[in-house]
């Protein structure tokens, strides 16, 4: 075990996967000598060389499109898009080839690749650098979408994503990159994709969240439990697609009340999907409308107002109390 930030843990996962499998290679902007703008690939260029750690041209569509080709050829590229806002530049290649090539060729060309990218707000970034559009990928058949919340699950989920036979979109909460440290085992560790985690079992109400918002939820839960004596069940989704519907519906069937928290926009967002599924699988147990705590349907604002824009613990606490108060 070693105490690591999420950045260090992700770096460890990349290092070990490259060490274990010569077909795993990295591609992205400034990931070589520079180690990536957030230093997630630090030292890997020195260790594995320019052939396996490829600095790309300034072209996101090019990164994803050529990575799809490498995967067709049999490699396992792990690409980095510098900020998730720039995945828009690659949307066509993601949707038309990365997500669909396996199906188009009836399995002849599986695409074993990962698209890593930092998402979300909270670091006083310039415009277009704080997006949380994971719902686009959840709505895109053929992809898996994974979002870790801390150093340890980030490492295990990235390793699992690299080893997964299907294309994975891996969103990294940049607000968490260096926010705290966690014990991370030195030896190779993975976690199954598609499984949510009950972080704290409880009986009064379920809070479902993922990524950077898990910190906010933990803070809220501490308050709710200690100050208000509310027995909250907190669930970390971890995998947006496929989604662990069973764990979610079991929880809400038990608690009958639920608040969903994420940074992404509200309309057609991940919370909407969770509500739709709970409506199907836990309808008879619902005692109150499920509340969505999300960013509103406006672009992420300029950073002087991001603190107000982003949901915080009080917002979550308020939603929980309203949900509990509902008759």
């Amino acid at each position, binding site marked *: 075990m070693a105490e690591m930030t999420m950045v260090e843990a992700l770096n460890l996962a990349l290092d070990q996967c490259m060490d274990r499998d010569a077909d795993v290679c990295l591609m992205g902007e400034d990931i070589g000598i520079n180690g990536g703008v957030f230093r997630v690939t630090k030292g890997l260029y020195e260790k594995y060389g320019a052939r396996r750690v490829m600095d790309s041209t300034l072209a996101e569509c090019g990164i994803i499109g050529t990575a799809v080709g490498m995967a*067709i050829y049999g490699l396992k590229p792990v690409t980095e898009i510098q900020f998730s806002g720039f995945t828009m530049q690659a949307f066509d290649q993601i949707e038309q080839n990365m997500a669909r090539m396996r199906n188009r060729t009836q399995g*002849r*060309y599986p695409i074993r690749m990962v698209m890593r990218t930092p998402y979300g707000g909270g670091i006083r970034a310039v415009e277009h650098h704080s997006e949380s559009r994971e719902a686009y990928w959840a709505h895109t058949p053929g992809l898996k979408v994974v979002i870790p919340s801390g150093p340890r699950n980030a490492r295990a989920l990235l390793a699992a994503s690299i080893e997964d036979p299907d294309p994975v979109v891996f969103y990294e909460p940049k607000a968490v990159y260096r926010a705290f440290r966690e014990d991370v085992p030195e030896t190779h560790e993975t976690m199954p994709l598609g499984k949510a985690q009950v972080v704290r079992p409880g009986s009064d109400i379920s809070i479902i969240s993922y990524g950077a918002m898990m910190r906010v939820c933990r803070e809220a839960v501490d308050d709710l439990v200690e100050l208000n004596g509310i027995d909250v069940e907190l669930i970390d989704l971890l995998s947006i697609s496929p989604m662990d519907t069973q764990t979610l519906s079991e929880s809400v069937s038990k608690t009958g009340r639920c608040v969903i928290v994420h940074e992404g926009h509200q309309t057609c967002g991940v919370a909407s999907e969770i509500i739709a599924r709970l409506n199907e699988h836990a309808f008879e147990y619902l005692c109150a409308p499920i509340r969505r705590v999300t960013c509103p349907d406006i672009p992420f604002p300029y950073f002087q107002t991001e603190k107000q824009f982003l949901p915080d613990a009080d917002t979550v606490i308020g939603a929980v109390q309203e949900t509990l108060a509902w008759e």
Partner: protein
Amino acid sequence: MPDELNDNPDPEAPTPAAKGQFPELKHGVKSSNMDTSPIEPGNIEVLQILDEHGQLDKSLDPPLDDELLVKIHRGLVLTRAFDHRMLTMQRQGEMGTFAPNLGQEACQLGQVIPLSRKDWYSPSYRSFGAQIWRGWSMERLLLLWAGYHEGFPPPAGVNDLPFSIVVGSHVLPAVGVAMGMNYKSDASCMVVNFGDGALSQGAVSEALNIAAVDAAPVVFVCENNGWAISTPLNKQAATENLAVRGLGFGMPSIRVDGNDILAMTVAVDEAAQRARVGGGPTFIEAVTYRMSLHTTADDPTVYREEELVDPWEERCPIRRFETYMKYKGLLTGERIQQIHAECEQEVIEARDLFRSTAASHPREIFDHLYEQLPEELEAQRDAYLRRLDERGGSDG
């Protein structure tokens, strides 16, 4: 709030100097930090070996062995026979929309003739002649155009990408395959085909640039057939020729008579050889013409004068090559007629096999998206299959 700011759009901003006030540009002085002599990007070769009358440039006649030449001729004839048949079948409602390649047969075969099985090919939706040469059975191609999923995956042993219908979307993956060859030190190459219209897609420009920067073993064959549906070349590009585009990205570029099977074969072979030994990509503009419809959903008479097509009758790549084969003493007029008949027969047989084997598999549409179907999709599939059963699975 912005009003408080001392923004100052200077009303006195210098209006542009009146024409002529500034000296016309000419080269600056030779200076210590900048070579100011004009840059010469280099010339673009233009290649034709057999002209439209079958006139041969003997100095360029490639030493292809007779067997291969005969096989090439058959390939050209078969491609056209297949094209005609598909058109008929489409008109009879047996095919979906498809894109004829009448007149582009040499252009397409020339792209793949120099390739070995280790080499890769990335076809567009109009490349079925090349696909047949690469080993795709005609009945598989019929399945593809008739909307059967089974027609899309490349046959076992054929290193091809699925044909690309989203214009230009295959070029980046094709470059990626070539980058994989560099990664694995595999001395093979990738030939990727796209049209004059596709060259306007940003993704294609990105692909050209990446291939050049990474010296990826790719041969870009830009099939300039003069049209992108109703859009003529001069509305698609501001340059007379398209080869100069390759030059702009820093790769050797050449303009080839796409209706000259010898020129195409020689040009692609040289580019492929260079690519395999680390020489990087080549851009080939293949000049040809879309003599027929864009697709069966298209009506060219709306936007194109028939007179524009006439001269290209003259430039028929097949007749041209047959003149050459006779001149070489490899084929007689009689034998040529037989070959045309044989190819027609081959196509008929493929059609019959297609008719007897074609079957859609609606129950399988969930089976190929993920290696293992996620639970949530299993539920969707089960609901879907129940529906099929209710409707009577067979139709079904």
